C-alpha cells in the first residue's frame, strides 16, 4: 500500500508533518499515520496562545481502537487551532495534509525544521 507524502513539508519519525506557511508552521499527521490509526473519532489540541515544545506531546488523537500522543515538530506559540476537527475529526482521515491540519505555530527557531525528515527520508521510514 502506498501513501501520500507531499514533498513541500518535513516529517517526524513519530509521523507528524510540519509545513512552513505565511501564518507560521502548520502541523498535522501523515497519511501513513491516519491509515494506521483507523477511524479518527477525537482530537485533543492545545488552545491558541499556549506554547509547544519540539519533541514533546501537544495533544492526542484517538481512533476507535487507540489513543496516540501527538508530538510537536518545532517549538513555539500556538497561533491557530483547526477547530473543525472537534466536530469532524474524520477530516484527519479524509485529508490529513490539508483540511485535517491541527495547529499553526509561531516557531521560536525556524531552523528546527531543517532537522526534520525530508519526504523521501520519511517515505523510507514507513516503506
Amino acid at each position: 500500500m502506498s501513501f501520500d507524502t507531499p514533498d513541500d513539508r518535513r516529517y517526524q519519525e513519530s509521523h507528524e508533518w510540519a509545513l512552513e506557511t505565511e501564518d507560521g508552521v502548520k502541523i498535522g499527521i501523515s497519511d501513513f499515520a491516519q491509515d494506521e490509526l483507523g477511524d479518527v473519532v477525537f482530537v485533543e489540541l492545545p488552545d491558541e496562545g499556549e506554547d509547544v515544545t519540539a519533541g514533546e506531546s501537544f495533544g492526542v488523537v484517538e481512533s476507535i481502537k487507540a489513543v496516540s500522543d501527538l508530538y510537536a515538530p518545532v517549538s513555539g506559540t500556538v497561533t491557530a487551532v483547526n477547530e473543525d476537527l472537534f466536530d469532524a475529526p474524520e477530516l484527519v482521515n479524509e485529508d490529513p495534509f490539508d483540511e485535517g491540519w491541527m495547529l499553526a505555530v509561531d516557531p521560536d527557531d525556524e531552523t528546527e525544521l531543517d532537522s526534520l525528515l525530508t519526504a523521501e527520508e520519511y517515505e523510507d521510514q514507513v516503506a
Partner: protein
Amino acid sequence: MSLQMPPLRGVHDERGAKVTEFGGWEMPVEFDSIQEEHRAVRESVGKFDVSHMGEIEVSGPDARTLMQRLTSNDVTALDVGDSQYATITDEDGVIIDDTVVYRLPDDGDDHAFLFIPNAGNDEAMTERWRTHRDEWGLEASVENQTHEYAMFAIQGPDARELVLDVVADPDCVSDLSRFEATYATVEGTDSESESESECWVARTGYTGEDGLEVIAPWDDAESVWSAFDCQPCGLGARDTLRLEAGFVLAGQDFERETNPRTPYECGIGFTVKLDTEFVGRDALERTKEEGVEEKLVGFRLVDRGIARHGYDITTTDGDVIGTVTSGTMSPTLEAAIGLGYVPVEYADAGTKIRVDVRGRPKKAKIETPPFVDTV
C-alpha cells in the same frame, strides 16, 4: 511464544486486513474501517472470523453431569440443538470464563455437548474438565477441537437471508430460533470445484443483532468463508458492536486474577441456576443472599472525550469510586460509551459521575445497557 494462526490468515492478508494479537492468536482487527464494518452489521450484514474461539466437545455417559457441574447454567434444559450462555466459575463463584454451551445430537444413550471457551482458554478449560472428571470418577470424553474447526459469525438483519442462500437445506436453518443450532451443509466456492462442508450452524452471536455462527471444518475454512458474500469485519467492529449491546468481554470486563468478579456483579446473574449443583454454587448463593457491593454499569459521556479501559470513575466531587473496564466511541450513537464497576449506590440510571480522561474530569451519566436496540 509464537502466535497461533487462524486457517484464513493468508486470505485476510490478501484482503488487506490489519491484524492484532488476541488471546494468543493473530486475528484481523480491521478490514476497511471499523465504522464501515460496524454499520454493515447494524444495517445489513457482516462476517467475522472468530476462529480464535475455542471448541471443546464433551461426550459419553456422564457428559451431562460433567457439564452441569462445571457451568453455572442448567444444561438439563437443553434439547438437542439448543444452546445456552453460561459462566464457568471457581469455588468462590468468581468467573473463570464465559461460554456458550451447545447440545449436540446424542450418540445412542450418551449425551454430547460442544462449548466455546474464549480465545486462549481452550487448553486450560480442557484441563479443568479432565481433572474434575477424573476427580469425580465420571465417564466422559473431553476433546479440545480448537484446531479442528474454524468459526465465523455472520451478523446483522440480513444475515439469515445470506446464510439461507448458501446452505443446501435452507429449511432446517430457517426454522432455527434464537440459540438453536443444527448441522447444515454449506455450499462453498472452492476455486477448483463446487465444495460442500458440513457445518454446525447456530442462531447465536455477540453483536446484539440477529445472525448466525458457523463452525466449519478447519480445512474447509476458505470455501465456507468465501461463500458468505458480505462485508468482512474485524475484531475492532466486534468490540464496538458488543459494547453497544452491553455484552461483557472476558479478560477486559472480568478477569479472574486482576479483576475477579461474580456473574451477579457482571450483570449476567441470569446464567446462574442455583437449583443445579456446580463449582461455585454455594458461594454464589451467599452472594445472591447478601447482595453485591459493586456492579458493572453502563455510562455515556456528556463531555467530549473517550473513556478507555483502566480510567478512573469518580463522583462529581472527584472521589474515585470505580474503574472503566470497556470504553469506546459508539459508531451508532456517535457518543462515547463504556462499562465499569461502581458501588451499587451509584449504579442507578441517570446518576451523574465523572470519568478521569488523562487528568481531566469528564461529565458522564450512568445508563442501563444495551445502548442500542438489540434483538
